[in-house]
């Protein structure tokens, strides 16, 4: 069986990749995609802890998997809203370059 730590390392790497995407991407769609990657990194962690629950504290626990499902639902809704925002932004500014959109500054 694959040791638990490998899954967690994988999850961390996935999170780092997502964060890098959010911080560097100029295209709004890419930012959204990177956020999805980060969310899924978290889901991997949750499922891992659920799968290894018997070894961790002696009884099976499905809570992590339930959380993962819930977070996927939230992610789907979030993407819908995010895409809608970018659609409006594109209509107003002819661009979805996040570095050019700074109307919420001081």
């Amino acid at each position: 069986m694959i040791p638990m730590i490998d899954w967690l390392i994988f999850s961390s790497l996935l999170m780092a990749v997502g964060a890098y995407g959010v911080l560097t991407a100029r295209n709004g769609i890419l930012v959204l995609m990177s956020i999805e990657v980060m969310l899924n990194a978290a889901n991997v962690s949750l499922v891992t802890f659920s799968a290894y629950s018997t070894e961790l504290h002696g009884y099976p626990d499905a809570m992590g998997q339930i959380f993962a499902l819930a977070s996927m639902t939230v992610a789907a809704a979030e993407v819908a809203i995010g895409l809608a925002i970018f659609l409006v932004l594109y209509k107003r500014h002819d661009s979805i370059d996040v570095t050019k959109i700074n109307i919420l500054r001081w």
Partner: protein
Amino acid sequence: MMIDYAWLIPVFPIIGFLIISLVPKKWLIWEGGAPYIIGMSTASFVLSILVIIDVLNGHTLTGPDSPRMTWLSAGSFELTFGIWIDQLTAVMLLVVSLVGTLVVIYSVGYMHGEGETKRRYYAEIALFIGVMFGLVLADNFVEMFIFWELVGLCSYLLIGFWKHKPSAASAAKRAFIVTRVGDIMLLSGLIILLRYVGTLDFSELFAEGSLEGSGMSSGMATLSMILLFGGAIGKSAQFPLHEWLPDAMEGPTTVSALIHAATMVKAGVYLVARSYPMLVQTPDALAFIAIIGGITALIAATNALVAVDIKRVLAYSTISQLGYMMLALGAGGLIITGLMHDGGHDGLGAGYSSGIFHMMNHAFFKALLFLAAGSVIHAVGTNDMLKMGGLGKTMKITSITMLIGSLSIAGIPPFSGFWSKDEVLASTFHAFEDAGSYSTVFLILWIMGVATAFMTAFYMFRMWFMTFTGKQRSDAHAHESPVSMTVPLMILASLAAVSGFAFFIGRGFFSFMSDSISSTIGSSVAVEAIHPLESLGEIFTSPLTYASLIVSAVGLFTAYSIYYKGAFSVSRLASGVTGKLQKLLAERYYISWFYDAFAYNIIYGISLVADIFDRYVIDGAINGMAWLSSKSGAFIRRSQTGQVQNYVAAIVIGGCLLLLFLIVFEWGEW
């Protein structure tokens, strides 16, 4: 029992004040609403008389069972408004209601030409009378202090009634500020009492041994009593805070009459008399009161010798007579304290009673003198006695009533001033015999008192002869004043002539007054009743009486020969040593000058420093804080770039730092 309705006495004039202040102009009927005020003050007068009859029949409202209502309560401290009526209150009620009513009636004639401002005048007069009633009826020091301050406010408003005159405005401010110095002392004294005794109710403070029983050291008790007297120094214009009263002559003469006879300055005498049960526990404070009173009597009398303003002569004579009252109260209290240890004695309450007696008589003859002076000023149009003269022919009623007042204040029998002034000097002399360690002081005070009696007779008749006899020195067509002015004069003149007879009518004034302290000072000091006829005999067999009578007569005769006969020209005194003395007196011993210099240089200097401190240090600190906030805000807001990725970077860096922190410090491993 009418005494149960005594709380209505102050209510009537205050209702009058509200009516005049609030109703539309067309409802004021006549003379700016004077009928309302005359009606209300007459109602108070009638009710006062009924209450006084109850008191004469032996009913009083004192002690813890007097009617009261709770105003506010905080923990164990409860502030109540109540009514306290004893013999002293009865005398005050008589004085305030009678003089107040007569002054209001007199005002109808005197203020006739004032036009629109009459409304304000009558409203303020009504309030003045009402709050003075409140003051004398109060049953605790907090209530009394509230009315005390209101009296000060009303006197400020009325002294500055002719506010368009800069001298009146500044006199009003001066009266307010100088009496405020006294008020602060009074308040400090009350705070000490509250701190130690835990209450300001008369019924508890006036219990026997209330000060020592509360764990006060005798020094602290004396200090609190002297501070309490400080309030009276300010209010009753005692040395060294007496200079506001002559300046207060800037107000209408009716206001002066009210202030001098009934309301303002009598409040200080009332305070001392009211505090007697506490004062007799502190002999040193009583000696202080007597000394201040004696000094005041002498100094003010010397000032009156050279004054040429008819109202200023009267103002100085008021200060001087108030000094007499304080002297009598202090001396009488010392006799009581001395005898509290040695057992009973005849006429224990004599000093106290003679002070109150003099206050009552003074109220009548001083109101009379002021109203008569007002009548003269009304006719001639000036206060300057050098421009009067020869008015006796045209103003018969005024000149005769004023003569009665002058004879009375000069202490010529059988007019009222004789009886009380003689008793004041007699109790001072008794204090010299009985007061132990203070006896030398009281001998000096007695000599000062006799000298004052001489000067009083002299300056009063100097005034009378200068005003009513000799050649007319102005071209004004003087005429007798209207009826509303002469009738109060005649009433007051008859009172000034006969009020001294209260001394031996019935039980006699002194045993009546002694009841008010024997009920509060405690049973161990039974104040013995003095048989009136017996004391009458005592007066006319005592050499002291003849001493004071002779000096008064000499004073009168000196004034007669100088100002009527012209046997001696005063102008010859205008140079050399006497000229210097004259200047010193005319400049009021430079006390006023000293206060001005003190205020301008020291206080103004301190104010300037305080102003600079306020402007640059306090305001600087506050403005600096504001400046710092706005500048730092301007700097920090640059971090809100609006760039989403900057925020995300901050979140990521913050998360990483938190993680690092947890790893290093919390889990302790790497």
